[in-house]
């Protein structure tokens, strides 16, 4: 499984991101390496402040400047270093090649525009000459919304949390990206809705060959969805490997501590 013959879609090398004063920076990401292969679901696991979200935002050069600064490393995506791209080139990368979904779909959606308009925006910008309305409905269908025409005309507050996250995924898929970065996509959702969204992400991987970087602190989700996992703590990757191997035989003290902290649904006999 781990014997990848093809080249990685993303190859992050020695990434370093600093916050605060240049003289005494907070090293939020402190020399991180990770790779994602085509069609792979990779989990980046860690707790608040571990640097997992900032690492993920760095992929499309989206760290919140000037508070944060990418001070070192390379992010090789499809052969070129995204950290050296000009703004015009970054615009072609963001959304079109690398798309993001976040924890709170309600705050990622604009409350004053219909869902359909917002999904259509990326199509209008990146894909000239496409029938936007038809494409939006196709996307909403592909993320499992039962009445896509009605969902397209709805405002975000008219949809449930699970439907909002499906709409966000539809928006992320609008330009057929190669990589979907999902940052705690189900943390705000009920457990049955969470399962539907995770099933949808796995289905999209199967059908589209989408690569997914899944950021989460939930090791149960990791065990059920990810092919490989990177464990992050204090800005560093402390352990990585095939999901089953890392979770069954964790080597690093921090991974062991995280696993021990997970409440178990059934008593282990």
């Amino acid at each position, binding site marked *: 499984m781990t014997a990848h013959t093809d080249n990685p879609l993303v190859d992050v090398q020695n990434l370093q991101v600093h916050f605060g004063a240049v003289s005494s920076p907070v090293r939020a990401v402190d020399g991180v390496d990770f790779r994602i292969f085509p069609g792979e679901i990779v989990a980046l696991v860690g707790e*608040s402040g571990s640097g997992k979200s900032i690492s993920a935002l760095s992929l499309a050069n989206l760290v919140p400047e000037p508070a944060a600064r990418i001070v070192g490393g390379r992010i090789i995506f499809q052969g070129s270093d995204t950290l050296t791209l000009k703004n015009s080139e970054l615009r072609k990368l963001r959304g079109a090649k690398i798309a993001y979904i976040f924890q709170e779909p309600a705050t990622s959606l604009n409350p004053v525009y219909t869902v359909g308009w917002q999904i259509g925006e990326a199509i209008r910008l990146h894909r000239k000459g496409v029938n936007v309305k038809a494409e939006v409905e196709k996307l909403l269908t592909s993320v499992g919304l039962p009445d896509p025409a009605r969902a397209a005309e709805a405002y975000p507050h008219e949809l449930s949390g699970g439907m909002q996250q499906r709409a966000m995924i539809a928006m992320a898929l609008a330009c057929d990206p190669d990589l979907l970065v999902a940052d705690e996509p189900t943390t705000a959702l009920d457990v049955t*809705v*969470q*399962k539907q969204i995770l099933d949808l992400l796995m289905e999209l991987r199967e059908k589209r060959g989408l690569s997914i970087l899944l950021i989460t602190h939930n090791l*149960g989700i*990791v065990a059920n969805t990810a092919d490989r996992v990177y464990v992050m703590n204090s800005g560093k990757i402390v352990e990585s490997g095939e999901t089953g191997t890392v979770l069954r035989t964790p080597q690093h003290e921090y991974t062991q*501590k995280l696993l021990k902290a*997970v409440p178990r*649904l*059934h008593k282990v006999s």
Partner: protein
Amino acid sequence: MSKLLQVENVHVRYGGFEAVRGVSLSLAAGETLGLVGESGCGKSSLGRAVLALEPVSAGRVAFEERSVHALKGAALKNFRCQAQMVFQDPFGSLNPRMSVGTAIEEVLYVHGRGANRAERRRKVEALFTDVGLNPDWLSRYPHEFSGGQRQRIGIARALALEPKLLVADEPVSALDVSVQADIIQLLKRIQRERGLAYLFIGHDLAVVRDMSDRIAVMFKGEVVETGTSGQVCDDPQHPYTQKLLSAVPDIDKALAQ
């Protein structure tokens, strides 16, 4: 066995919407009852109704055999000492402009505990130590604490009046997994030491199982299943409980495959 808390056929109504539809539960002293369900199932409304923070449209909540919704004046104030609440987001429930020491001390002051300021201060220091915080931090403000520390402060405040019942509404949902484990350990230790009863409201079945002696599963305003934690999690009877359990991303099941 006489019950500390008896919930009998309780209904909670908001206008035309009935959030809780005929729930009956009981809780003994020193026991933990877990209340699980998804958003909108009525679990928080029920928790608030138990504390008489929400009126009931029908039914009865009895605490030590007295109807809590009929309490007035001194009797109601006394009930407020006996039954306290811990919230999901302690930051939202702490005054940002009040030092945490003052916030806890105020509880004692309002209820006339402690002869003077110095005595109240000593009580607050003891509470702070008991929940694993350094009493030197009492002059700090809520934003100076981490999420886990704030939840410890929320627990200290709830314990200030030495209650017999704590209603904990998703007390660890907003916390990192390792911090979550620490707070659960703290709640368990406090229960052992003080013989507190908990109504532990949550959506994470694994957390609720870890905390609870018995579990009640709520769905659309009704309790669809109750049993010991083991019965409910290992041998669920109601289709909704089964659905809820099968949706949990179970680490052990995934690794066994």
